[in-house]
């Protein structure tokens, strides 16, 4: 069964229609790359999935549960918060919390959720629970290759390291689907490799991922499926071989051509 099902998603900002009926499905463990030129609606799509924007029309379904239906009431703030946790999002500009160390960035939300759960059972979170969070955060930071940087503040880390902390932070809450919004676009070329390597390793661990990217090589080699977006619609989708090897749409061909000439 599909982990994620998106149907007829539409979104306008003022008079500009950014998404014009987006629909796709994603299987568990699949990696989906979304490519397309700037302004094609890729980022808006990710933001709708993460409830940072509210789509005007359409449905979003995760594991058979309808998370979003434009025809229905979105539910309370608490509902939206709970629904958000199905998705993780790694931002283009990292957005780490500057006043916390790498480790604290990863544990912050975990601890808040632990405390909230404890409060609902009318007790306080135990030391052991918080200790477990720390252990898990350390494990995640080690997984992204930062076991030596746990106590560093974001300002002491390179862009690539910051982005890897951000990935660990997103993984900490065990989202069903991890989304990346151009994860390497703010990085110097020599730093993109370390981030892409981490994403590749996540794929090997069967993490379900949606990656909005301009890294064509990466999209081609790592993803199971590729979506090419243009002007707010899915112009073409398929396996990387299909989209990159034998693009059907003229727009796709033009886009890929332009990329090669750069």
């Amino acid at each position, binding site marked *: 069964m599909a982990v994620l099902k998106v149907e007829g998603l539409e979104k306008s900002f003022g008079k500009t229609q950014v998404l014009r009926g987006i629909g796709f499905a994603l299987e568990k463990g699949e990696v989906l790359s979304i490519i397309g030129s700037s302004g094609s609606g890729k980022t808006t799509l990710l933001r709708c999935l993460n409830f*940072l924007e509210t789509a005007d029309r359409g449905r979003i379904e995760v594991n058979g549960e309808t998370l979003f239906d434009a025809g229905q009431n979105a539910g309370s*703030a608490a509902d939206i918060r709970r629904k958000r946790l199905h998705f993780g999002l790694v931002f283009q*500009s990292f*957005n780490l919390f500057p*006043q916390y160390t790498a480790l604290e960035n990863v544990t912050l939300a975990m601890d808040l959720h632990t405390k909230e759960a404890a409060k609902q059972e009318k007790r306080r979170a135990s030391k052991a629970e918080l200790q477990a969070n720390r252990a898990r955060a350390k494990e995640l930071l080690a997984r992204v290759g930062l076991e030596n940087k746990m106590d560093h503040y974001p300002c002491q880390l390179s862009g690539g390291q910051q982005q890897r902390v951000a990935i660990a932070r997103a993984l900490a809450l065990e989202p069903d689907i991890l989304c990346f919004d151009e994860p390497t676009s703010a990085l110097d070329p020599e730093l993109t490799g370390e981030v892409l390597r981490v994403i590749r390793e996540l794929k090997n661990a069967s993490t379900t991922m949606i990656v909005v990217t301009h890294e064509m090589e990466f999209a081609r080699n790592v993803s199971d499926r590729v979506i090419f977006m243009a002007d707010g619609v899915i112009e073409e989708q398929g396996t990387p071989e299909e989209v990159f090897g034998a693009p059907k749409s003229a727009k796709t061909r033009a886009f890929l051509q332009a990329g090669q000439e750069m």
Partner: protein
Amino acid sequence: MSFWEVNRQLLDGFGDTCLLFFATLVFSLPLGLVVCFGSMSRFAPLRWLTRTFVWIIRGTPLMLQVIIVFYVPGLAFGIPLDARMPAVIVAFVINYAAYFSEIYRGGIQSIPKGQKEAGQVLGMTDSQIFFKVTLLQVVKRVLAPMSNEIITLVKDTSLARVIAVVELTKSAQDIVAQWGLLWPLFYTGVFYLAFCGILTLLFGAAEKKLAYFGG
């Protein structure tokens, strides 16, 4: 009047200066946050009401506000005019809350939107995001303008003398009037300087303490 007697009398006045200073801070720092939230409210009437309030408070002299708070209740409702210090404190608290609210607003609005969004996608509530993510960053950013404003407050306390609160400057003026000595008036500058000097050091230390993180 000896040097020590002058000092004693000035210290009496300085006590009232300190009372006014600390009372203003204690009430206006949190009240400023309330005003700030009002001025950023999504509910337009509240936003305009708050901004009009800030405009009026910042657009008229503090001295006039002190006079109004002290005299108007008496003139309008026949309340006897004897609560001088409370009237000054009320006027100062309102005035400084208006200024602080604008500093807070600038600080809060300067935090990148991505910080809030990062908290949101991690399933944090708005209040968790404010207290755990935004607040310390805002504190760091507003420290310099706040130190400016708070140092101004030290010297603004001398306005309380318009309704005969005997703070530092007024107590020196009393000495001038009663004893014909002029130097105690100039000498009050030493008290103000020392007070502001200590505040400058405190703010410097706070800035240093928050220097560990960027942004």
